[in-house]
């Protein structure tokens, strides 16, 4: 069991700040849904470093990201399963 980043999309979509997408060290791990105006995490790529939490809390000051046990997440988005298909995201991802 391990922790992954999880984004509260209700909070995130109020801001459209996109900062965490630029500071996560891993490529295409925090994705951005332009239609739903929210960031979301591809959990299969998240290494649990918690850098995004600090970015959202201290730089963006939005407090939208928490670390959650992967087993406690009901729905997850995995890039290796879904591929990088922004046209299919539109608010449907967890």
């Amino acid at each position, binding site marked *: 069991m391990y922790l992954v980043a999880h984004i509260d999309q209700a909070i995130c979509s109020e801001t459209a700040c*996109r900062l965490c*997408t*630029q*500071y*996560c*060290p*891993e*490529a*295409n791990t*925090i*994705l*951005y849904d*332009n239609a739903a105006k929210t*960031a979301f995490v591809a959990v299969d*790529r998240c*290494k*649990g*470093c*918690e*850098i995004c*939490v*600090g*970015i959202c809390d201290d730089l963006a000051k939005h407090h939208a990201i928490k670390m959650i046990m992967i087993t406690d997440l009901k729905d997850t988005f995995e890039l*290796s399963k879904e*591929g*990088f*298909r*922004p046209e299919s995201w539109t608010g449907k991802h967890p």
Partner: protein
Amino acid sequence: MSFKNMTITPGWEKYMTKEYVDLVERGPYGKQKKVSEMGSFKEVLEEHPMCAGCAMTLFIRLTMVGLPNPEHTILIGTAGCGRLALTQTSIPFIYGNYGDTNAVASGLKRGLEVRFKDQAKDVVVMAGDGGLADIGFSAVMHSWFRKERFTTIMLDNEVYGNTGGQESGMTERGALLKMAPKGKLFDKMDMIGLAQTSGVAYIARLTPTNPTRVASVVRKAVMIAREVGPTFIQAYTSCNIEYAIPTPKVLDDAREIESKRYGFMEIISDEAKAYLESIDTSKKAKK
């Protein structure tokens, strides 16, 4: 490579991996992507085994976004942590022997200029402080003296990260490391000063605290290397393992080091400045 070489022959899409199809269809080709678009386009960097929260990983990721023409770029690296990610990009990567990256890059760039007269091909060396300032030092210096037209990027984590914590020439005096238990006895090498002395056309020092700046510095360095002369980027990319930095604090550390002794700095020759201005003016004229 070129984008044409990457495109999939019609009918073969179903045999290609998802990642490849995504890259061709939604990758950063044809138009320079912006840092503010990250998360909305497929990046050239894939998954890789570098440590969680490694600042070097972040820096490499941002560098890939800054490349003006990834489809016409060749990366050269060597032993050290960075190549663990650099080998997982869709950009051709040459694994130089530890120490000879800048010699390999010199020959490659000259060969590419002969072979592809009508298409600029960018050569970018990315290696550690040990690889460039210690073991590769002579090849780095001579590539600069000879004014070879490629970019050298030092991933300066101030330690030999990949081999468990030996001091490098770029380690700070007094730093305690596993393999420097009494603290380093000598000063950090002044590679910026050496680059200046050897006439490098564009020199930048920075940390990954400002992603847009990283991408813009990389773009400038690669463009100037195409037309003017050698360029050098020295980037603080902490090793959270050897310096025992908890991963959530990696960017706090970068900000602190930046304000104490690793502030953003750019040194640009008159010729390089004029060249950058000329490409900006021609871009505006096109609009």
